[in-house]
């Protein structure tokens, strides 16, 4: 799926697997996504890095309020401006920053809760490095900071999981926020 098309939600039915195989896959994927979320909520960032593929693309374009006739402008395009447009090196830099002991916006650390909901497998494709499973979820990343700052982000996520020998690796995370003007002082939290 090319990056532009994917900003339009998909309902492609997943094919080529019997019903119980689908159920098992769904279970495996949900459990992976929940475990991955739990690592972030537990601030175990380095372990989280371990779940990422080396070629991960972690991207959150800018969403704009536009009229129906300008819906092509709703999201910025790949390669353009974005809130996140990270490869593995940049994500490692973010984690390193969090570990530096001087990331003031995260010390005291904020408290996050990653709600992963409406998990849907959109497709399974054989890739060079293993099967690649495209997944759509609704997410609510709830966050409190200090004693009274309550906020969060809501939207749709398009993930690609690649099946490695020892479990899944996250090969793509494209995050489509429902918010346009970001309502929080920062986004120092990982999605």
């Amino acid at each position, binding site marked *: 799926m090319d990056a532009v098309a994917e900003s339009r939600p998909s309902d492609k039915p997943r094919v080529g697997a019997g019903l119980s195989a689908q159920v098992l896959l769904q279970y495996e994927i949900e459990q992976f996504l929940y475990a991955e979320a739990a690592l972030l909520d537990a601030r175990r960032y380095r372990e989280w890095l371990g779940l990422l593929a080396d070629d991960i693309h972690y991207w959150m374009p800018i969403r704009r309020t536009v009229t129906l006739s300008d819906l092509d402008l709703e999201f910025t395009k790949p390669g353009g*401006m974005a809130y996140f447009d990270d490869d593995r090196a940049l994500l490692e830099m973010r984690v390193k920053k969090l570990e530096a002991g001087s990331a003031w916006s995260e010390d005291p650390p904020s408290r996050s809760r990653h709600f992963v909901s409406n998990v849907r497998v959109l497709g399974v494709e054989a890739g060079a490095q293993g099967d690649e499973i495209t997944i759509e979820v609704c997410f609510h990343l709830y966050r409190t900071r200090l004693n009274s700052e309550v906020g969060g982000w809501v939207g749709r996520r398009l993930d690609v999981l690649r099946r490695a020998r020892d479990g899944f690796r996250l090969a793509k995370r494209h995050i489509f926020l429902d918010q346009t*003007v970001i309502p929080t002082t920062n986004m120092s939290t990982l999605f």
Partner: protein
Amino acid sequence: MADGTLPIAAQWDAGEIRALFDAESGWLDRRVHSDAALYQLELERIFARGWNFMCHESQLPNAGDYFINYIGEDQVICVRDENGQINVLLNTCRHRGNALCRAEQGRAKSFVCSYHGWNYGLDGRLIGVPGQSTYYRGDLDKSRLGLVKAAKVESYLGFHFATMASDAPALHDYLGDVGRTGLGMVCANGDIEVVDGIQKNVMDCNWKIAVDNLFDWYHVPYSHASANSAGFLDVAAILHPNNQMVMLGDYGQAIGGPGLSKETQAKIDAMSDEEREAASRAAPPNTPRVRLRRAKALMGPEGVRSMGHPNLFPNLWITMSGLQMCLRLPRGPSKTELWWFTLVPRDAPAPLRRRMISQANHVFGPAGLLEQDDGENWSQSTRAAAGFSSRKVGAALLMGLGRDEVLVGENGQTSVEGYVGEHAQRWFYRSWTEWMAARDWAELEATRSPVPTGVV
């Protein structure tokens, strides 16, 4: 009460306002960061009266392209009309006040009000009124009921600005040499365009605290220590603790930050544009490019040495970390909306363009590796200003006070050079008190301080 003025805005008198910053001692009264009455007055006396950045011409290539911006808390439509002109129109219907545009940007043929269907041209003229001859019996003088236009819209280097004050000085004079140097800085290596996608977020801070910070090279090593540790930033390379070069201009314009030495500049002056480009390519990534020959005309013989941060008074920050401009829109005494505009040279080859966008995406904005920590300091400084006793403490703008001298350079361009200091911040707050105390432009012109000379 004057038109549009709220009773709350009348609670401070001019003497009290002037006392809020003592330029002699460098102490600032922190009620400027928290009082609701001062905030209302800012909307009137700073934002409606000053020149506000609206957009760059590249954002609106075609007739009908529009971009919503603000003058204070007033929403305006910036739109290119069929004649190619960019108009700035209050986004409020002349009938009952409904918004014409509710999107952030887009393409329009005309602006039709969703309430009763009044239709305005791209230049704001009222071109259609349902029932004009019937319900209105032809009484309606449409020529007087166009969308309210900004009193003046003028541009410099493709950057459009607007003011609601018809007696405001021309943009050219308002910017002055310092403001023009600031805008010249972003065009020093070629004409630019704005990349699609403005990063926007809301921060719990007073807008002036964000402005204060942009001149501030003092905070870099400590605030951004983690970006340094993570390898994103090389503090040592950007600090230049005693190569600072501050330029102060009329109306509160200022540039703060490092500058090249005259010697370095002289070496550059000797290079051809080709040599400069080659030097840029040879430098480590994320190093500012060596400016081309055109820069001197744009920035002046001294200004061309500035590697700092201009602020176009009141609220437009220009930075070369990623060639960006940040507009700080007031949203209440303790709330500011930050809008990041990213610029690239029009003729930038794809890899350079990509690198510049990537740098812009990662340095500032809510997820930016620098701005995350800035926001924390700004919001906490604002929060504390709400407490009765903490508010009394004052902020100390003492650095370098009385220790430096304004140098008059070539072409009369002036600068304060040497150590990291707080000259630009003091000038900003001093100008602010003068803007706030003056009832109108005439009074402001009569009472504002000249640009400092001598010892500062």
